């Protein structure tokens, strides 16, 4: 079974804090993705990566950065958290076609 593990299920952070969301996959896949899910807006791509140390902007990269130092780990960084970044964050990896998602991190910024 493919496992995509996100480090936290729930997170509460203060405005202005630097926030790290971690994602680890055990399938040796090259592609990894970070999405944000909001009601009525679906899944929006923040950043993705096709290889170690490689990153590409998705549709909504503003206010975020990423790090991929190892193939299995893809981190999403909120440089200075704001209340409009309160959301569900989903990490995913893809093999040839199917995307495998983590369970999500519900982030609340207060």
């Amino acid at each position, binding site marked *: 079974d493919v496992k*995509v593990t996100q480090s936290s299920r729930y997170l509460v952070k203060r405005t202005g804090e630097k926030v790290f969301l971690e994602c680890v996959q055990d399938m040796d896949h090259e*592609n990894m*993705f970070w*999405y944000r899910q909001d009601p*009525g*807006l*679906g*899944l*929006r*791509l923040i950043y*993705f990566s*096709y290889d170690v140390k490689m990153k590409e902007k998705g549709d909504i990269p503003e206010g975020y950065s990423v790090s991929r130092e190892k193939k299995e780990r893809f981190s999403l960084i909120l440089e200075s958290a704001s209340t409009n970044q309160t959301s569900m964050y*989903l990490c*995913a990896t*893809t093999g040839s*076609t*199917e*995307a495998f*998602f*983590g*369970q*999500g991190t519900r982030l609340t910024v207060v």
Partner: protein
Amino acid sequence: QQQVKQSPQSLIVQKGGISIINCAYENTAFDYFPWYQQFPGKGPALLIAIRPDVSEKKEGRFTISFNKSAKQFSLHIMDSQPGDSATYFCAAEGSTLGRLYFGRGTQLTVWP
């Protein structure tokens, strides 16, 4: 702009009925069209997928109908069950390997 448009946003169906969710796309480079199912508290999971060389794919109670000329595809859930209550996302993938463009989702509720 939204690459994949999905409707309706929410759907209520009686047990045993047919649930139909529709999606449309513009980019003719898309060549893979999956549907994902998401239960509360879980990440989305692949339900069924189709490529444009066929017009229909069926897996159990779930069927994708694909109309290449209209650039539309739909998910039909036959004999809908309360356990099908979930959020459904259509998606499309093209030349950028692995990058999926998702619709906004449909929240399906099946009443017993």
